[in-house]
């Protein structure tokens, strides 16, 4: 397997690296350390610049107007785009555009016209409503939200939690149980408009990621038409599952962006900071921390690229995606932790980005499927039919 980037990939990566260092990082010096938005005029200016670079809408398929990049290039770019304070969850403050809800690429033409295309033009926003108070790691069994058939559509009752962006969205994908007897075969995905009566954002859920909140939703006799079903009746779990596997690869890469930056800062600091008459870089304790950072970063990067390579080849990649997410999220946490230690007291302050990365990276071991679930997925693939 050749994981060496092509010349074209190297050129794009260098371009994005310059963009992050020259355009994004200087703006952050004036923002609150927990900011997740740029000033509107800065955002518009940088979006225009990214469009000029031909990289707007990185995750949008070429047939819908995106640049049509492969997963390997996407991984390399994700690592670069995350190398700033807000980079873990808001790489480049969203100026590279968002793909929105990938599930809508499989929607009917009518649904695409109503939801997907306005979303890609930036006119509408959507949310992904899967996790419930009863659990998120096992959606097939945890989903208690019910959709009951009526003469002219469906009525949905239930709740969702840890849902991002629902309070600002125009519509969302809501997974509800349509056949209580069938487990994962009894879940359907509905496109729900947030202006419909019965849709409520009940509260904000504050987390370690203090720059951004999740929401808790309630559906109170929410009436939806038959045309709101995305895909087929009782086939919603497949829609959710497809996203969960594929998404793990860029999710892993995003973890590595701040970790690379933390390591770079720690290396520079170790070469400048003196203690007891000698540079930190001369201390074996510090050297070993830096070497361990290097090991973590290389292992996680190669495993993430290996998953991306399989994905690009069109061969099954579920195990590789799970391993990449697992290794990258844990390695990145360790790298940031060691880098903070090298920085000493300053590493704990809001003067530097470490504390934000440290808090936010902790979430990555739970988000997009907890690492214990990734291990379960890998074990299932390793043991196959032998696992009962």
């Amino acid at each position: 397997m050749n994981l060496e980037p092509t010349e074209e990939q190297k050129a794009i990566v260098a371009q994005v690296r310059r963009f992050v260092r020259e355009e994004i990082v200087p703006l952050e010096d004036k923002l609150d350390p927990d900011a997740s938005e740029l000033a509107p005029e800065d955002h518009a200016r940088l979006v225009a610049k990214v469009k000029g670079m031909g990289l707007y809408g990185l995750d949008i398929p070429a047939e819908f107007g995106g640049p049509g990049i492969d997963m390997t290039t996407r991984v390399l770019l994700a690592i670069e785009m995350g190398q700033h304070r807000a980079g873990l969850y808001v790489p480049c403050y969203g100026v590279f555009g968002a793909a929105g809800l990938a599930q809508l690429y499989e929607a009917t033409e009518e649904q695409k016209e109503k939801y997907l295309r306005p979303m890609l033009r930036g006119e509408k926003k959507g949310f992904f409503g899967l996790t419930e108070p009863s659990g998120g790691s096992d959606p097939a069994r945890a989903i208690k939200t019910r959709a009951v058939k009526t003469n002219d559509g469906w009525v949905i009752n239930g709740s969702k939690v840890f849902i991002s962006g629902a309070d600002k969205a125009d519509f969302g994908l809501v997974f509800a149980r349509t056949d209580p007897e069938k487990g994962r075969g009894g879940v359907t995905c509905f496109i729900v408009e947030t202006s419909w009566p019965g849709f409520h954002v009940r509260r904000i859920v504050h987390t370690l990621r203090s720059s951004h909140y999740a929401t808790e939703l309630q559906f109170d006799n929410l009436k939806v038409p038959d045309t709101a079903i995305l895909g087929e009746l009782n086939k919603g779990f497949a829609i959710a599952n497809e996203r969960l596997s594929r998404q793990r690869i860029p999710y892993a890469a995003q973890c590595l962006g701040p970790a690379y930056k933390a390591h770079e800062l720690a290396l520079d600091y170790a070469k400048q900071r003196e203690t007891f008459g000698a540079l930190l870089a001369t201390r074996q304790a510090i050297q070993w921390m830096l070497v361990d950072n290097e090991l973590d970063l290389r292992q996680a990067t190669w495993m993430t690229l290996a998953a991306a390579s399989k994905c690009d080849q069109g061969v099954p990649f579920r195990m590789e995606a799970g391993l990449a997410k697992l290794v990258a999220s844990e390695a990145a946490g360790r790298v940031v932790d060691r880098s903070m230690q090298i920085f000493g007291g300053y590493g704990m302050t809001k003067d530097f980005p470490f504390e934000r990365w440290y808090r936010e990276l902790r979430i990555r071991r739970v988000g997009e499927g907890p690492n214990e679930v990734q291990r379960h997925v890998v074990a299932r693939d390793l043991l196959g039919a032998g696992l009962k």
Partner: protein
Amino acid sequence: MAIRMTKPWTPLAPETVKKLSGQLGVYQLADSKGDVVFVGFAGGRSLFGLRGEVEKAMKDPPSAATQFRVEVNQQYTTRYQELLMLHVHDHGDVPAGNVGKPLPKLGRLSPA
């Protein structure tokens, strides 16, 4: 945690403001009737945290504010947005003192 701030109001005066901590958090200012006229936060770049921010407000009180209350909160960014969204839910708009100032993009909240 209650989503609305319910602490009693404190007069916006030098002797009360100087007792505030320098921590991160959110604060509200109110007029003499106790109606909220401004929501703000003390973030990572605020000099002297809540005390510094409320001192600034005291020197030039927005919308004739005469009282304040604070909440020490590490999640000051999302809490600030939550308080603004609650005000929009309850009163149809952000507090008078926040009008015309840079605001984050606010969502819609409909608490039970």
